């Protein structure tokens, strides 16, 4: 749509700007402020320059957490996106069953995150949880508090359980917007099921899928509550992701300087990757002329 140039539109945006300035800019400046100072308690601060940043760039703890975080996010995307599309393709198109599926599928999305953690913490326990008990009886050595592989599997299955529905719902919305005429044309051309998917459904879902990938990437990169409740970052440090590490540092050890420097770098990494996604997304929008 063509837009009129109108500088007065700034006034319409003003409320948002004031609100976001209060809830984002001021706190962020505090973080920047801490990141370049050192403190010995008593509210005495000393200029530290870029010391913290240099220290963190060489810190193994951060490298490990970042590595784990990236692997985690990639696994999550690799499972949830294809699975979500697959589920969306199999959902009933309309009527009672469609509503029922939508309602049931949205359910995990509205459970508070620590309750999600609690659900899986219980579900995976060998003594009282259905999953843990069953696996144990089947002869698998499954114990997510001791074995880091089991902990990873639990955290990943939990995230798949929690968020696949979001991808599926978005993909489903994309599918719903495809006119019947497209399918009829494909039928006349005797296109195979795969070709219908590849050349009709996938391109039409592209826009919503980018949103789904963007949301899933951002949220999995910031994941805190669920793994914290289930594993507490353990066993050892094996499921300590960036946010868990950051909270440990900032609120646990109260190392304000390093924690602030950590925050800024963390934020920048997310911004950078999201900017790439966002640019791709807006270019897609333009190409399709939405």
């Amino acid at each position, binding site marked *: 749509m063509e*837009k009129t140039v109108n500088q007065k539109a700034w006034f319409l945006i003003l409320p948002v700007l004031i609100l976001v300035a209060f809830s984002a800019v001021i706190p962020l400046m505090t973080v920047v402020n801490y990141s370049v100072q050192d403190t010995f308690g008593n509210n005495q601060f000393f200029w530290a320059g870029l010391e913290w940043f240099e220290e963190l760039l060489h810190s193994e703890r951060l490298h490990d957490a970042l590595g784990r975080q990236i692997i985690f996010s990639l696994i999550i995307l690799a499972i949830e996106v294809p699975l979500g599309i697959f589920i969306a393709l199999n959902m009933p198109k309309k009527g009672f069953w469609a509503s029922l599926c939508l309602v049931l599928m949205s359910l995990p*999305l509205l459970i508070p995150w620590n309750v999600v953690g*609690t659900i899986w913490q219980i579900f995976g326990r060998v003594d009282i949880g259905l999953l843990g008990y069953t696996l144990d009886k089947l002869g698998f050595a499954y114990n997510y508090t001791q074995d880091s592989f089991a902990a990873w599997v639990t955290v990943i299955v939990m995230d798949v359980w929690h968020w696949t529905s979001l991808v599926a719902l978005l993909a489903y919305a994309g599918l719903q917007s495809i006119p019947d005429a497209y399918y009829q044309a494909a*039928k006349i051309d005797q296109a195979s099921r795969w070709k219908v998917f590849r050349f009709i459904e996938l391109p039409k879902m592209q826009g919503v899928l980018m949103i789904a990938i963007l949301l899933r990437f*951002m949220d999995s990169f910031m994941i*805190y509550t669920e793994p914290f409740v289930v594993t507490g970052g353990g066993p050892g440090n094996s499921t300590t992701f*960036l946010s868990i590490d950051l909270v440990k540092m900032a609120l646990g050890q109260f190392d304000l300087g390093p924690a602030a420097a950590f925050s800024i770098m963390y934020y920048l990494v997310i911004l950078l990757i999201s900017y790439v996604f966002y640019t791709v997304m807006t270019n897609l929008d333009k190409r399709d002329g939405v």
Partner: protein
Amino acid sequence: MAHSGKKPRINSRAIVMTLYLVFLLLPIYWLLNMSLKTNEEILSVFSIWPRNLTFANYATILTDASWYMGYVNSLIYVVMNTVISLVVALPAAYAFSRYSFMGDKHLFFWLLTNRMAPPAVFALPFFQLYSSVGLFDTHIAVALAHCLFNVPLAVWILEGFMRGVPKEIDETAYIDGYSFPRFFIKIFTPLIASGIGVAAFFCFMFSWVELLLSRTLTSVEAKPIAAAMTRTVSASGLDWGVLAAAGILTIIPGALVIYFVRNYIAKGFALGRV
């Protein structure tokens, strides 16, 4: 979908959906199952349904003010947040969808970056900021803090819906002599009602499920239910039954909201970009 070979496809679809829904519901069922048992039963017998059905765990929560006030607190700040987010996001989304102005694209991306900000980064500065202005442990503090990610999201969703409304409607209304506020409230808002519904749903959802910020910003007066659940850890170990019952109760508001917007989920998701 392709209409050839109808019978077998419908069956395979039903199987896929059934498996997926069972996967989704099984952990929730397990929680429900535990919430209806006594602690002795949970720890001693392994059964897939409660042998001695008991509602004692729910009674514990619903009769203790420090428990049920958690729900009230959570609902208060969630509703506050949804209202604030929508009120400020509506005009902004209108501006983004209709006008081009200096720095609009950068501003839009900058807004979105706030949705990408890890709450962990903001936990400590928020605590200091809200303490210094005397808002610590109030509902409004949590509501404002959640605006950090809900306002950008609401702007994003609403902008998508507003782009779908032809500009000619605005122009006709102005020619007919409508002032901007009257046009916006009387004509434009009803046109994007489903968009507002979807945006409200998402604001509710992300505010309801968030814990890190709401726990950091509250201690007693505005303590959310999610934070109250840590109380079940006592000297005698975890009170699994009460924990499970509290968990089940946190699912109910979400389920109610979904039920009311179920028709919007299907329609609404498709109209805007989200």
